[in-house]
């Protein structure tokens, strides 16, 4: 199945095309503020590069976040629009799973991390790889690095933009060298590959109802807790 994948949860338009397990195209366009005005041109250029047209695409995958609030909305909305207009099915994939997928060869615990956008708050989750599958083995975590350190009890590979920075902070807090780091950005083709596997087994989302993964309540809680600690620590 020919699937186009999109992820805009960071500050880039990541777009890729996969057919089953085969990668046909994969590009990351740095856009920062022009994500919305560029994305259709970016989709077009990726399709051209793969010598395909939109009509050839049989399904769509979109990265649902967590990540930049505005960023995610753009990719999810454009993905839904493309699916709706072409009458093809769509599957949303957590951006944390997309990152975890980049460490799928790891035998250790996999912990993708996404910056929550202000003041050192992060999103994370734990995954394990095995039998050609990535499985999420924890709830989503929203908080800070010290809080994440308390959850890690075994050798773990961190997958993130800025993974090295997180690794050194965690290694220091945990006084451990069992933490590895894999620098990685969400990729469009990974979204496409993960979505293709699910779409092929008949699993898909409601095109109109699909919504970004906003961990709103837990994010609010994490910020309120952080603020309490800050106020208590103030002289």
């Amino acid at each position, binding site marked *: 199945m020919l699937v186009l994948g999109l992820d805009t949860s960071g500050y880039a338009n990541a777009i890729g095309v996969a057919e089953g397990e085969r990668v046909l195209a994969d590009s990351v366009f740095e856009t920062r503020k022009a994500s919305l005005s560029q994305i259709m041109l970016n989709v077009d250029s990726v399709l051209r590069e793969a010598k395909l047209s939109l009509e050839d695409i049989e399904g769509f995958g979109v990265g649902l976040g967590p990540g930049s609030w505005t960023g995610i909305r753009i990719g999810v909305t454009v993905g839904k629009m493309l699916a709706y207009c072409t009458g093809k099915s769509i599957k949303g994939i957590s951006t944390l799973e997309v990152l975890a997928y980049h460490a799928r060869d790891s035998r250790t615990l996999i912990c993708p991390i996404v910056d929550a956008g*202000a003041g050192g708050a992060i999103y994370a989750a734990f995954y394990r790889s095995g039998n050609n599958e990535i499985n999420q083995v924890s709830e989503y975590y929203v908080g800070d690095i010290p809080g994440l350190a308390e959850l890690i009890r075994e050798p773990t590979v961190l997958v993130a933009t800025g993974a090295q920075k997180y690794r050194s902070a965690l290694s220091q807090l945990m006084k451990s060298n069992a933490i590895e780091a894999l620098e990685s950005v969400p990729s469009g083709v990974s979204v496409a590959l993960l979505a293709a596997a699910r779409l092929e087994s008949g699993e898909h989302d409601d095109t109109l109802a699909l919504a970004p993964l906003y961990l709103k309540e837990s994010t609010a809680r994490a910020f309120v807790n952080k603020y309490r600690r800050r106020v208590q620590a*103030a002289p």
Partner: protein
Amino acid sequence: MAASKTAKKTHVFLSNGPAATLRFGKRLGEKIATGGVIALIGELGCGKTLFTRGFCTGLGVSEKEVTSPTFAFVNEYRGRLHVYHVDLYRIDNIEVGFEIGMLDYLAQAETSVIVLEWAEKVLPLLPEDYLQVQFEVLSPQRRRLEFTGFGERSSALLRELEG
């Protein structure tokens, strides 16, 4: 959190009328050198929008361009620094703060100025460093403005304002 990181500096300014509030905002706009967060706190009609208008004028934005974004949530102005003028009047709690993408705006505080009206509704979301302005209505004309600089950068800005 180390005590040095929560460096705090306070300064009080008494305004005898709208023109003075506007002028004081303008001075802050002229002095500010980098991006940052300015948190405005005070009841309806205390002068938050007026102060913001002065502030933006100080950054070179035309005065009539600055209006209250109560219904739009956010206005953007292009001055010497980019300004996001956010009004949280219609926000009930922090969760709704996420709905309007507050974190995306706050993440730009390095290079842009984020002015927040009704900032008390989202205090936990604010970065370690921000300038708080608390407005108190003393009489129909007079206002008491208490400036608090949280963090190094905002404290330094406040020192400049006093000088």
